């Protein structure tokens, strides 16, 4: 009984220290200007998403005045800073609200993929044997699909919706995460503290989740940053191909799809959503590069 009391207390102290270390390593970012630029871009879009109701000057889904050029003044007051689209919706407001869409779905999908991938990777790397064989072969097979073909088939069969996009992304990217986790576990499972926990008689899951996983976090954080950028690309591409979130809610990829036929006469309709999505992805990729640079240093 006493062991449970001490172990339930341990993680909370551990998490406090881990959180402190994490904050400190983000503080180290200032040594890498690439990482700083990335962090700035990501923070910028996070702020935009949080403050969306304050920044957006119009309702993102209401049709006000079609084909307005950037900077045009609306008849009923207000300025279309980035113009309006073919059905008269303000593009700035749609980009601002669209940042919410992408910053909700992309982390959700990434977390979901990581949960599945980490569990599979821990199992494969820790248990070894047939579990490892089956999971690894399965991962090989899923990874042998060209990614977008896999997305198209999944979305075509289960339909396009927010939840289904998360399911598709989890299905397609958890095998890659599993491979990374498995590799890390294979390296960590022979450490002394793992042996100590095993001798204490901890259950397998406890050893995997409490002893091994926290020590594998370094490479996983960098990978998560890169993957987040990649998931944003995927959501954008699906929206662009017409397989993304159903209209009318603003989604950057979807905005490009709806207006690309008019790009000749009204380039602002497609250019601005493209700049938005590229800058957010660039933010995550630069941040990942900065974090990796720092983690390699010490």
């Amino acid at each position, binding site marked *: 009984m006493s062991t449970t009391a001490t172990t339930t207390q341990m993680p909370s102290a551990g998490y406090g220290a881990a959180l402190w270390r994490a904050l400190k390593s983000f503080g180290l970012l200032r040594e890498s200007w690439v990482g700083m630029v990335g962090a700035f871009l990501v923070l910028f879009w996070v702020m935009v998403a949080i403050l969306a109701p304050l920044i957006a000057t119009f309702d993102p889904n209401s049709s006000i005045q079609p084909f307005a050029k950037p900077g045009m003044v609306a008849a009923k007051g207000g300025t279309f800073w980035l113009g309006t689209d073919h059905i008269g919706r303000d593009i700035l407001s749609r980009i601002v609200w669209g940042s919410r869409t992408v910053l909700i779905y992309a982390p959700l999908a990434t977390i979901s993929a990581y949960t599945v991938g980490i569990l599979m990777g821990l199992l494969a790397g820790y248990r070894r044997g047939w579990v490892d064989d089956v999971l690894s072969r399965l991962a090989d097979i899923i990874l042998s699909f060209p990614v977008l073909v896999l997305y198209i*088939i999944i979305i075509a*069969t289960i339909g396009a919706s927010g939840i289904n996009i998360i399911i598709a992304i989890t299905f397609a990217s958890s095998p890659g995460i599993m491979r990374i986790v498995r590799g890390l576990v294979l390296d960590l499972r022979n450490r002394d503290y793992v042996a100590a926990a095993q001798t204490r008689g901890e259950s397998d899951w406890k050893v995997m989740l409490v002893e091994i996983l926290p020590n594998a976090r370094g490479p996983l954080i960098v990978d998560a940053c890169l993957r987040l950028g990649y998931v944003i690309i995927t959501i954008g591409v699906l929206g662009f191909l017409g397989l993304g979130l159903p209209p009318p809610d603003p989604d950057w990829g979807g905005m490009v799809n709806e207006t690309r036929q008019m*790009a000749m006469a009204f380039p602002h309709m*497609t250019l601005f959503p493209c700049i938005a999505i590229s800058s957010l992805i660039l933010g995550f990729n*630069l941040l990942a590069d900065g974090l990796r640079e720092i983690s390699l240093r010490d």
Partner: protein
Amino acid sequence: MVTLVIKRIGFMIFTMIIVSLILFLLLETELTGDPAARVLGQFSNEEQRELWREQHGYNQPVMVRYVKWLGNFATGDLGESIRFKGPVADVMLPRLWNTAILGFWTFAIMIPLSLTLGVLSGMREGSMLDRSISVFGILTTSVPEFASAVFFSALFVFGLKWLPGTSSMSGGFEFRQLILPVMVLVVYDFGYVARMTRASMAEVMTSQYIRTAVLKGLPYKSVIVKHALRNALIAPFTVIMLQINWLLSGVIVVEFFFAYKGFGALILEASLNNDIALLEACAMVAVFVAVATQTLADIGYTFLNPRIRFS
């Protein structure tokens, strides 16, 4: 070596069978909704659907249907395309050829470009040139293909009016129409290959034999060309082969954007129109190309790398 080849090819066949099973379960069974409803549309009534099932043998047990389907597939009978009203093979082959042309030019430009940049930055790790190339690579891989397609069109089609904005080749094959799609694919893909080449080059540069060569007083150029490159280019070979898998994804976006009549656009069209036979065939071909290149990459890597070949 021989056992490795046999093992890899065996795994390839195994993968294709599992993939075919997954495709069959997803597209041809009730697991993800009624296939009859998918083909005939949501407004068809139960009587029509029953008739369709009867005609197309959907009332037989799943296992019987799968074996029959796989048998047809293996003997080259890919079924009929609903959308294009003709045999799937006749629809697919010209499209595959078009995509092969697009892929050929993409690789012809991407490989020399990314290898050069990768070697240059890996040669002197941490130098100004190295940092600039790596940040530039991050920049280009951060822009999704559809976004760079928009940017390039804005610049070269609407701004400078140098290039055509679509690549439908409606008036026969024209090389000018191929430039923008190839550019988009190269810009998105080269960063990754360059980065992998850099890593491999940087590793070789720290090895003992390079230090010996430098200390021996050989000119730097000949150290790089004669000693370093040989080993540094083994790893990028695998990476480049695996890029074919990525290219297949990029090709879908680019062909859709520029209205190029290729294989990628065909997959998308098949899925948006619920053309199941066509979608199955396209997916099988795409996976086959991907798995075959992976197998070749593995075998090639072993063949090129004597340290593995002789151990």
